[in-house]
């Protein structure tokens, strides 16, 4: 019962956030220089008068500002994200076609970076002051400072163009007509480079967070108690410190899931990965604004959904969280 109430509350909050994003989109369209109908037509000012007139009627652009806002936000909340006149397809169906590829990419990058990041962070904290701590911290700082798109390009040169180990671009081998397990393997090979480059930046972030969190927990009283009881350092590290240190890191990582979407735009652009990030880049070069706004909206919805999911998992895994809130 408690859990259902919690879920309902979170979903309601998520809807409010999505409404705010719809309003934000609406305001942006009106802040753009020129005619809002031109922005919605998304053809870089080249739309014909008939289409513009149709859009004006559909979105009530001759009506008062607030009515327009109501119409726009209302259609957004019904997941009617407009129509891409350039691609002759609804924005929602365009996004839905591309979504699985992005979920695969961001999902694997998230899992890889969280695993490697927390592990490295634990190692660094355990060997605090040791040269390996210095090495891990330095390397993570370096990846933190390197532009993601540049790492993507350089790994493309090295691992694909020069060494020829991995495919250069794309989602699967074109024209190979693979199916079943062979196709999965093929996609997996294409996934390695994009997922690694996207994951590297976040690994760097999680290493730093995990290290700080470990050091903080290591100073708390229950760790001293455990040590006073005569438990071995290994047991204390694994059972007392690491378990408590990982919780805030995962929370923060979940909250920052939105950044993965941004990173996906860059990696998908470099590796021609057919996800919503690449869709956004193509829409950018074609000035197809409805797609841009739609991708922003859907990726926000995804992040909200993901956050609700992580919170839900927490409340099941760690009963203390539910009891406090």
């Amino acid at each position, binding site marked *: 019962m408690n859990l259902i109430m919690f879920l309902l509350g979170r979903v309601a909050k998520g809807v409010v*956030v999505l409404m705010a994003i719809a309003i934000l989109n609406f305001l942006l369209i009106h802040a753009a220089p020129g005619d809002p109908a031109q922005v919605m037509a998304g053809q870089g000012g080249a739309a014909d008068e008939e289409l513009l007139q149709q859009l004006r009627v559909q979105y009530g652009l001759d009506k008062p500002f607030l009515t327009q806002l109501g119409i726009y936000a209302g259609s957004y909340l019904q997941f009617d994200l407009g129509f891409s006149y350039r691609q002759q397809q609804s924005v929602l169906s365009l996004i839905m076609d591309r979504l699985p590829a992005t979920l695969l990419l961001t999902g694997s990058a998230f899992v890889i970076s969280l695993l490697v990041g927390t592990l490295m962070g634990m190692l660094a904290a355990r060997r605090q*002051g040791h040269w390996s701590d210095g090495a891990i911290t330095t390397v993570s700082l370096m990846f933190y400072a390197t*532009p*993601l*798109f540049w790492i993507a390009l350089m790994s493309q040169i090295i691992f694909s163009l020069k060494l020829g180990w991995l495919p250069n671009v794309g989602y699967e081998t074109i024209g190979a007509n693979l199916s079943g397990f062979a196709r999965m393997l093929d996609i997996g090979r294409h996934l390695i480079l994009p997922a690694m480059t996207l994951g590297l930046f976040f690994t760097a972030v999680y290493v730093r967070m995990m290290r700080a969190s470990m050091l903080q927990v290591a100073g708390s009283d229950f760790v001293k108690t455990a040590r006073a009881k005569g438990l071995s350092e290994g047991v204390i590290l694994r059972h007392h410190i690491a378990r408590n240190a990982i919780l805030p890191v995962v929370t923060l990582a979940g909250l920052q899931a939105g*950044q993965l979407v941004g990173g996906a735009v860059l990696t998908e652009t470099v590796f021609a990965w057919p996800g919503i990030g690449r869709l956004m880049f193509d829409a950018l070069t074609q000035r197809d604004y409805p797609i841009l706004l739609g991708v922003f909206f859907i990726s926000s919805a995804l992040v909200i959904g993901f956050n609700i999911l992580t919170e839900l998992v927490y409340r099941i895994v760690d009963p203390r969280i539910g009891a406090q809130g």
Partner: protein
Amino acid sequence: MIAFLKRFSRNPAAVVGLVILVLVVAFAILAPLLYPNSPWKPVQRPFLAPFAQAGFPMGTDTLGRDVAAGLVHGARVSLQIGVVSTIVALLIGVPLGAIAGYSGGWVDDLLMRFTEFFQTIPSFALAIVMVAILQPQLGSIILAIGVVSWPPVARLVRGEVLSLRSREYVQAAITIGQSTPRIIFSQILPNTIAPIIVIGSLMVGTAILLESSLSFLGLGDPNLMSWGYMVGAGRTRLLDSWWISFFPGIAIFLTVLALNLAGEGLNDALNPRLSRGRK
């Protein structure tokens, strides 16, 4: 001040960061003297490899423009956008955080919900949408970076203000009837300057990364030669002319790394008690 400099210089990484930073700033300032011609002007044959021709240590790009000239002029663009957009973020974040932390209650609740909203939404996607729709210009780029970067500032300032407002000297100021804005601006905010400077220096690095990512996607100001644009422009000729994309990337990396090292050094030097645990 001297004690502060001493503490800062004891941290070798921070000093290295500062030295790189000074070099980048020097290049940016001296750009018109070092390369008086426009960085957009073709000066040699295209795809000239580094050191193939005297005077072109980094070669030329797809249109025969000098990569080194682009780098030096790009330093101006990157630093300017980094600093100005950070100032924009501080101008949004500091007042919001201060009001939230000082008022408490529903005002705090409302402002923090607002901050959370901007933290959950995919910030880079928002920046792309903003710059694309408002048209890629210096102003819209700075605005977009500022708008997506302020939430951590607001949270930091709120926390600081929250802990400061219960201090005795603030209570005293309330008792003698000072106005709320005066208390915030003359009693509380001056004491939060140190953490704001630290987070600001780290944010300049993030802003430079954001700007370069935007111009890599083609969302740079078309009149400004920027590092991200250079990487993006060389992207199609990676295999035979790697240097076009390579050098600007290194420039971004070094500058952002330097800002992070100097920022962390600053943090340690400003909070000597907090940092003693490290190392």
